[in-house]
């Protein structure tokens, strides 16, 4: 069964809240990880690894640098998981 954008966003919210302590309610598709959510480069690595585990996908390093916003990450994961 295909995973929806809403399901991935919900998962990302949980991960970012766990890793960086950002309340889930602050996490929206348009938010920039670094500028809006204060997720630094080390914490971003943690977010990526947690997302890989949760959604059963691989996120290559060259894709991570392009994931500036929550939306970028969600879209990549939806595509990769389906």
């Amino acid at each position, binding site marked *: 069964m295909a995973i929806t954008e809403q399901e991935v966003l919900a998962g990302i919210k949980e991960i970012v809240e766990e890793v960086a*302590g950002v309340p889930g309610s602050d996490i929206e598709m348009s938010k920039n990880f670094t500028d809006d959510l204060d997720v630094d480069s080390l914490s971003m690595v943690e977010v990526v690894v947690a997302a890989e585990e949760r959604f059963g996908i691989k996120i290559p390093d060259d894709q991570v640098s392009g994931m500036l916003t929550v939306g970028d990450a969600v879209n990549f994961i939806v595509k990769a998981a389906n």
Partner: protein
Amino acid sequence: MSLNNQQHQQNDRVVITGLGTLSPLGRDVASTWEGLLAGKSGVTRLPEDWSPDMPTQIAAKVAVEPAELMDRVEMRRLDRSEQFALIAAREAWADAGSPEVDPTRLGVVIASGIGGVLTLLNSYDVLKEKGVRSVSPHTVPMLMPNGPAAHVGLEFGAKAGVHTPVSACASGAEALGYALNMIRSGRADVVIAGGTEAAIHPLPMAGFANMKALSTRNDDPTRASRPYDKDRDGFVLGEGAGVLVIETLEHAKARGAKVYAEVAGQGLTSDGFHIAAPDPEGTGATRAMLTALTDANISADEIVHLNAHATSTPAGDIAEAGAITGAFKSHLDQIAISATKSMTGHLLGGAGAIESIFVALALHHRIAPPTINIENLDDAIHLNIVRDKPRALPSGDIAALNNSFGFGGHNVAIAFRSI
């Protein structure tokens, strides 16, 4: 002495204005000091499934878990030794009245004996079980021994220099000595100094146990750490941190800070004898004490209190007692000796720091903490030990010493004066 010289000496005096700790006896300085004066032991039995084959099943864990004192997200990026250091530093800084200081004049010297050994070992478990990808990117900043100093430096924006002396169980005292030098040499006006350790894990404990360094009095944890007792059988591993804020007397006066005591001098020597065993002659330790007195311009007859290293090992306690006797000779009887590891266990790199806090408080409150668990005093020990109950210290100008020694033959003595 010329006026200029007097003025110079006045400006060079360095005083303690803030204290902080998380220790086996309490979550802060007040509760730790209260436990110390009450003769309370912080040693407990470890859980049964912890490491069943370990000959030692006891340790002195911190009285309150960092999770109760710190934000969860912050915690997961910090080694346990870093958590302890930050908690203690925050208390010390607040206690000092959060001094306003030019960041380029604020230094940090926080030591650790072993560094982030829990992170190192736990991360290796993750590597083996889950692979390279799962090792946290925070691993290196968490395991580096300068991590606690670096985090405290970041917290308070210190830019005069952040340092981490490493000399095993002498590290915490060496940190205070280094901090004293930073101020005396003009590098800083205020320094946050201390030591931290979090090494209660089967691997370091197995290493210590196989050196026969640890007590195996597993059925009687609170009486296991018994410096100077005939039946002492090794130290009890403790954990925690102690942090002191020090500054020039002039700086403290200018901002109206309360002052606990003066850090008056330091003596650092090395044995050149053995990697782990103390030199039975104790000459290196004696020289450290005498050097500290000279550096502080204190005469032996001014010393009324000494917090001994006294870890409760058969060889170490005797060697230090001999060294103290060698340093003080005829003045020995007037020195109230406290072996506070009988209550806190041995905090390794944190020991010299919390024991410096205890000396500062002893001078400030004019009371020497007790040494517990001496049921039968070792015949070879001829010291004036404060046993079981605290003892009042004289009024007037008094001075005290703190001894810390470390594997590798490191000897550190810090001299303190009442204010």
